[in-house]
């Protein structure tokens, strides 16, 4: 018998019971479905003890490494502190270290954060203004290297949060950040594997973070980044990416514009289409897709049909408005 701690309550998991059984017996509200380790509705996170391997099934490697497991498949081997997915994320107060334009509609926001080592490049956090207005943004840098989180914040028509960041937020101001979320990040295994990064708009934010992380870990396989926007003026970080490609022979960068004429050195067309055309066989590749939801969904399927393993395709679809998915 082992105790399970969830916020302020404690549940004892009896012999033969799964974590899901114990939580349901105590009327704790947890989503679940098949009770067979298939549907993954009952994913919870252990904040301390490592979950038994059998309870992690075929979750993505990134979820496994952060202690997530299937409650219906878990017979605890020791006491555990659990976080349910619906449990409200805690917010930490942070200070704005920089807020400067990247292009005509995107700001680079840098905030100082304690416990930066818990955040991974490519994950997302919920940023919160003093009055509670909250939006999700992806981490564009390696947090532990600088003790900061960087975000690319695009001004959206009618977007209250982005308008505030663009017009009012200043260096030294306070802003609140949630726990890191999401599984779209680099894991330093299989370092000779090819990595294909495809992003549109501020989908470059998580990809830039993942790229920096992979290079910092000495990833030796090819890394190919395709970044697209509609117009040339909406691209950014072009010079930085070109400079990185010069320094790292295994990294290549392709910028794309989908409407109007492309200037020299920039491809005319959609980033996902250019990337897939250049990679007819993705059977050994790891693929990261970030940005517009339609682009992410279609490309996910195409990458899979070109042979990428399901577990090797990481998606981060940016959904606009109060939806809990990230915008950047």
């Amino acid at each position, binding site marked *: 018998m082992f105790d399970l701690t969830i916020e302020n309550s404690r549940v004892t998991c009896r012999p033969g019971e799964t974590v899901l059984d114990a939580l349901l017996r105590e009327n704790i509200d947890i989503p679940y479905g098949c009770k067979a380790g298939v*549907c993954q509705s009952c994913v919870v996170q252990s904040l301390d003890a490592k979950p038994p391997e059998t309870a992690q099934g075929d979750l993505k490697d990134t979820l496994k490494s952060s202690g997530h497991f299937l409650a219906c498949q878990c017979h605890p081997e020791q006491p555990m502190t659990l976080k349910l997915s619906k449990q409200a994320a805690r917010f930490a107060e942070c200070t704005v270290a920089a807020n400067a334009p990247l292009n005509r509609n995107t700001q680079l926001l840098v905030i100082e954060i304690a416990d930066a080592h818990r955040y991974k490049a490519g994950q997302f956090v919920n940023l919160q203004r003093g009055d509670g207005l909250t939006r999700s943004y992806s981490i564009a840098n390696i947090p532990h290297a600088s003790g900061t989180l960087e975000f690319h914040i695009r001004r959206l028509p009618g977007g209250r949060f982005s308008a505030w960041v663009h017009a009012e937020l200043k260096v030294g101001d306070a802003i609140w950040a949630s726990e890191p979320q999401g599984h779209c990040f680099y894991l330093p295994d299989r370092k000779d594997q090819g990595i294909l990064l495809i992003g549109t708009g501020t989908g470059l934010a998580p990809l830039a973070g993942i790229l920096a992380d992979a290079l910092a870990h000495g990833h030796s396989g090819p890394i190919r980044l395709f970044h697209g926007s509609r117009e040339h003026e909406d691209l950014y970080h072009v010079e930085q990416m070109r400079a990185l490609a010069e320094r790292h022979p295994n990294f290549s960068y392709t910028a794309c514009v989908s409407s109007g004429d492309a200037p020299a050195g920039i491809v005319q067309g959609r980033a996902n289409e250019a990337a897939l055309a250049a990679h007819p066989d993705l059977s050994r590749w790891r693929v990261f897709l970030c940005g517009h939801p339609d682009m992410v969904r279609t490309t996910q399927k195409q990458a899979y049909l070109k042979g990428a393993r399901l577990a090797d395709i990481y998606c981060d679809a940016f959904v606009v408005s109060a939806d809990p998915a990230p915008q950047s």
Partner: protein
Amino acid sequence: MSNSLYERIGGEAAVNAAVDLFYRKVLSDHRINRFFDSTDMDAQIAKQKAFFTYAFGGPNNYTGKDMRSAHERLVKMGMNGSHFDAVMEHLGGTLHELKVPEDLIAEAASIALGARSDVLGL
């Protein structure tokens, strides 16, 4: 007492390996891919896992009634026996490709075949 087919075939790891191959075959097959096409690929994958877990006689709580209601929409879209047979073909092809022994493939096929009338709403 012999172990269940699910255990002999390799359990959840076998399900995952099979789904990775199978779903690609199905999506590439013009006879049937419209029944599997969906913008939510993750949800589709979960369904394919449930299918293989079922075909391997693994842990599931499906009833004939569940099978019927789950496939009702597809029957309305025109799904019939020929589509079911195409899926059976890919089930066999996938398991062959994974070098599953013939007798186990036959066992899985007969479990899947057992759901035919419920799936087709007959």
